[in-house]
């Protein structure tokens, strides 16, 4: 004989489960609102004001004036150009190098940890630290890069204060630092690809190149996309490495948007204009993310 299930218990259980879920999510929601949403909204709000502490502590509404100023500001366009070039060069650069590293790390070595440690190390180093290390590497007088060039019979180069060389030195450093992050994501992706597929491809007579092109790459696409999204967003926000290596110099030749935002707000105390610049940077990152996500959804369907 089965005991009749009391009805109320079930419906109440259902309700409380929903309520429970709601109440469990509330703290996270509040926290997210407080630390993510509020600052962003506040930033947008501030960007509509003439608010520069060096002219006095009062803020006055000036609509879209800050944005109009940005569009006329040669330094903004210069920073935007530098930032875009860094994105265009370091994102594909890190992807190619990272893919190579991931494939290397995925090889069936008997001792796996040295390769994995090598992958983790650049990723674990703080950005500023990397910038300072490479500043020394590229120092024209004491740097190891010039030392090697001179030993090989070459000419001393002024890496950090020739605008083109400084730019490439910065890109090189960013790729060195970020390709390990890409490699870690891709390595995880590689390990989800079943071995049987490779065996089947081999039986069908596929060459190693065909196996990579037809099996590895298509199955790795989701991981590649994830890596690209993260890498692109952080590339738009590039700050630490050029700040440590050149401070944006020579002149403003290697200044990125994030660096210009910092100088405007923190040094010049022009919070209104600095906020407008930050909003523009935010919109740019958002736009890129939306494009990627669209693409991901398209690929899924």
């Amino acid at each position, binding site marked *: 004989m089965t005991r009749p299930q009391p009805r109320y218990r079930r419906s109440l259980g259902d309700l409380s489960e929903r309520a429970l879920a709601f109440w469990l999510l509330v703290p996270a929601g509040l926290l997210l609102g407080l630390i993510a949403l509020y600052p962003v909204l506040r930033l947008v709000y501030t960007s509509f004001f003439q608010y520069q*502490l060096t*002219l006095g502590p009062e803020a006055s509404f000036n609509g879209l004036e800050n944005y109009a100023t940005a569009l006329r500001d040669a330094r903004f366009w210069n920073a935007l150009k530098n930032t875009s070039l860094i994105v265009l060069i370091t994102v594909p650069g890190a992807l190619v190098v990272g893919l190579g590293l991931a494939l290397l790390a995925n090889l069936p070595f008997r001792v796996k940890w040295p390769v994995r440690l090598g992958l983790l190390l650049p990723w674990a180093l703080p950005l500023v630290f990397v910038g300072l290390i490479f500043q020394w590497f590229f120092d024209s*007088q004491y740097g190891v890069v010039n030392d090697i060039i001179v030993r090989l019979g070459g000419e001393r180069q*002024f890496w950090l204060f020739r605008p083109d060389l400084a730019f490439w030195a910065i890109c090189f450093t960013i790729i060195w630092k970020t390709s390990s992050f890409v490699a870690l994501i891709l390595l995880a992706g590689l390990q989800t690809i079943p071995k049987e597929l490779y065996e089947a491809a081999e039986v069908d007579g596929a060459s190693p190149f065909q196996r990579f092109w037809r099996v590895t790459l298509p199955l790795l696409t989701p991981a590649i996309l994830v890596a690209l999204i993260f890498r692109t967003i952080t590339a738009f926000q590039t700050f630490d490495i050029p700040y440590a290596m050149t401070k944006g*110099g*020579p*002149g403003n030749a290697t200044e990125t948007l994030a660096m210009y935002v910092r100088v405007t707000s*923190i040094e010049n105390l022009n919070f209104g204009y600095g906020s407008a610049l930050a909003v523009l940077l935010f919109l740019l990152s958002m736009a890129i993310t939306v494009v990627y996500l669209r693409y991901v959804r398209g690929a899924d369907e």
Partner: protein
Amino acid sequence: MKKLFWLALAVLVASGAVAQQATRLRVFIGGQQRPDVMRKILDAYQQRNPGVRVEIEVGGATSDQQQQYLTTVLASRDPSIDVILIDVIRPAQYAAAKWSDTLDKYLPAASRANLLKQYLPAYAKANVINGQLIALPSFADAQFLYYRKDLLEKYNLKPPTTWDEAIKQAQTILAGERNPNLNGIGFMGNISEGTVCSFLLPIWAAGGDVDDDSGKLILTEAQARNSLQFWLDLMDKHKVSPPNMAEKAQDTIRQEMQAGRWVFGTLFAYAWNRFQNDADSQVKGKIGVVPLPRFEGGRSASCLGGWQWTISDFSKNKAQAYKLVRYLSSPEVSKVLAIEASNLPVFPSLYKDPDVLKANPWFADALPVVQAARARPVHPRYPEVADVMRKALNAVLARTKTPEAAAKEVIGGLQAIYGK
């Protein structure tokens, strides 16, 4: 167990009551400003003022790093810091942002004038913004021409008084020594505050300035171009500075001079003690110091540095903070700072004080330099002014801009800040 709890609670309440009784003041200073010496000075103050406890908050090592943190604290109107030690370039900014409690409300006009008369005139001037007294000086600083006494003596040369002499002497010594590691004239050229001083020195040495007493921009494009050209010529024409001056920070020059690699160096006062006292110094006893050279027909000028005490406008203990600031900017404390931290005094009389001279014999030579030192432009938007000037010199030294083009940008940039 219960007893223990009540006991603990009682202790807590009692200690809270004690803490309530004493006024707590919080003083902010930078990491390079000898917090150990400052602690001693404040301990002495606490002994004399039993009701007051003073804590020290130590910030970053450079003026920029400190201000970055202070900007966050002050822009959010945080009352936790009462008294702040600020760089000589900042009072105008603090006045404009209304971050400082003006000291005039505690000082009637007559006693203010009396007080300010005692300090080196440059500091009395630097701390009065639009007629309001924003801060009081703690210690002085200025740029000096450091030179290698041994090398100049070897070639029978007297310390230079004009830049032409300095260049010729450097060329003579470099030609005679044939040492590939030895360089002639060291100056700051990277993107930093020191490079602002580099930009200004030739302008002052030729008798010019950036703005006049009424705050009007008077710098001409020709003056700016001459300054930029002057430093470029040291590298390319006179060959007394190596071609990579665009990456030289002040402390790089100091380290290299300490390793015996410069004949001349334009550095602030801190370098002296490092040259004389650092264990790895190759130049102990071989360094002399003179005022910076002038141009023919111009005047010798140095870049004024130094640190000032100001009261945060968000402090909750302003009256007590004022008392503390008066103590910290007194001759007594200036003397302690001179002897224990080798900080240049802000009172002219202390440069002749036997105790001070015993600890720092070279202070006797320093007084004329500090007295002739010029203040960088006093402007609420000084960080922007500085950015225009240091970026221009840095770009010229990196040879990405000609002095003509960079001078045009300097004037354009400054006009945008000053308003025409």
